[in-house]
């Protein structure tokens, strides 16, 4: 047994191919980004020059960067709260309200999660459409007599981010509803029963019993939502390409444009590192809310 599990040749065979692939395309690129971030221009071209920490200083002066940063933060705040809170409400609905066809209801609510982002974005761009003809939302609004609310949802800076958030909340809701529902099922039924007998009404039951019990899973949900939203790229790109006028342009999109449209590899790598730092920092902060001491 011991000898078989210490087989060096087999070990090499099992480890090496995956290790090479993983190192070359996942871990090494992070270090590489860090290296790039001290340069300006594009590697392999004459304008590729060492600039020290210049790129990092530039971040503070760059209007486009701070714009993308604030868009990204607002998007994260809205989507995280929306996904987790509405997901929580849905999970409570699954647990306490849905009696008939329960698994069918859950299956349907989960379905949007598996849809391709681009497909969802194409669909929603048609829902929000105003030209050449009204999309679903505008035609419904017009149909019920709310002509005043008909507007180019994706064409104006004031609504585009909200429209995008609505789409992303819609897509991911089922995911959070299902994992929170799973956590609700794990709460022993007699705790809920005991609280009811002690005279808890629904809101007290939720606030005093369910919420504390759900806390670890809520923290997990926020981490998932956080790591999902900080990347903000595909949905915004597919819905409006970050427009109008950068009103929905995220950090990742700014990084992408800088690298591939404006060919500034060095500066784009700096932005990429900011995203990585935010990602690590944010998850660490959220994790602190997981009350291990209880």
């Amino acid at each position, binding site marked *: 047994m011991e000898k078989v599990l*210490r087989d060096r040749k087999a070990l090499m065979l099992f480890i090496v191919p995956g290790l090479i692939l993983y190192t070359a*395309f996942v871990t090494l690129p992070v270090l*590489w980004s860090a290296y790039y971030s001290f340069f300006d221009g594009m590697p392999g071209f004459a304008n590729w020059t060492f600039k020290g920490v210049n790129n990092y200083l530039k971040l503070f002066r760059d209007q486009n960067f701070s714009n993308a940063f604030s868009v990204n933060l607002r998007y994260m705040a809205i989507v995280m709260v929306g996904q987790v809170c509405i997901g929580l409400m*849905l999970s409570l609905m699954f647990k306490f309200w849905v009696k008939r066809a329960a698994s069918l*209801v859950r299956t349907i*609510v989960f379905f949007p999660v*598996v849809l391709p982002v681009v497909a969802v974005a194409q669909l929603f761009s048609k829902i929000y459409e105003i030209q*050449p003809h009204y999309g679903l939302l505008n035609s419904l609004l017009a149909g019920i007599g709310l002509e005043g609310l008909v507007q180019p949802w994706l064409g104006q800076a004031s609504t585009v981010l909200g429209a995008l958030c609505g789409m992303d909340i819609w897509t991911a809701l089922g995911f959070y509803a299902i994992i929170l529902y799973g956590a609700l099922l794990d709460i022993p039924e007699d705790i809920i029963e005991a609280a009811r007998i002690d005279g808890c009404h629904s809101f007290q039951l939720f606030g005093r019993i369910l919420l504390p019990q759900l806390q670890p899973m809520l923290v997990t949900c926020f981490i998932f939502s956080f790591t999902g939203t900080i990347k903000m790229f595909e949905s915004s790109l597919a819905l409006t390409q970050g427009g109008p006028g950068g009103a929905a342009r995220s950090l990742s999109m700014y990084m992408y444009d800088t690298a*591939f449209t404006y060919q500034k590899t060095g500066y784009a790598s700096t932005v990429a590192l900011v995203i990585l730092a935010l990602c690590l920092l944010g998850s660490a902060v959220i994790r602190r809310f997981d009350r291990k001491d209880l």
Partner: protein
Amino acid sequence: MQNRSQAYGKQHKPPVFRKVGGGLKALVIFLVVLMDVYPLFWMITASFKTTTEFATRPAYALNEGFYVQNYVDAWTRGKMSLYFVNSLMYTVCSLFFIVILCMCLSFALTKMHWKWRKFFSAYFALGIMIPGAVTLIPCFQIFKSLNLLNTRSGMIMLYTASSISFSIYLLASYMRSLPDEILEASVIDGCDIYKMLWHIVIPLMKNAIITVLVINFFFKWNDLITSMTFANKTSLKTVQTGLLYFQDEFGSKNWGAIFASVSISVMPMLLMYLFLNKAVIEGMTSGAVKG
């Protein structure tokens, strides 16, 4: 006493109220389900509409007939047939390599005895925290110098590499719960390590492998950022990249064809979901539940 009356307060409600409450609950549930189903239903009906139907009737109207030409247009003129085959090829090949590599890796990381095991477990776990966007630029440069840009093998390599961490995370947590006695018994029966992996471990890990396949199918089929960066030649594009530029190809007037191609891109997920929805839901949420 007061507590008691509160506790039993519910039962004292007149039955009419309880009925209204039940009706309200049903209505809310119905609305929630409707919110999830209706956009998709609308998409499918819209994919059968003619261009004039879009212009003359409100968007929420049902389709008058079944105008299949939209699908023909999307499939041929919109090159959906080509993109579909590309997507399928990248996805299936990378799934194959992901399962092979990650089974071997997680076996080595959980069951085999060697000095650096802990170190490499931590090393492979790092990747979960690294957003794909961060590795994009260096990968692009690496690919450029290796002449891997716009190649099928390059796409498959990237797809495989980016899934290693998460797949190991899922597989290893299952594998750790496999009792060592089973492995021991197989050694006594004369298995070497390869036979043990193939005949004992893989059959026992069937459910975990299905989970990994499902979740990676979802990630690979729905991927946009990798494919739009590394395969932008028309003959190599995936469904998602193709869809992104569809509007330019067809013009913003031809909604029918756009809806048809969106429907085509959704089809594999829809089919998988229809037959495997339990496995899909479990697979997708397993990362959260296990963690």
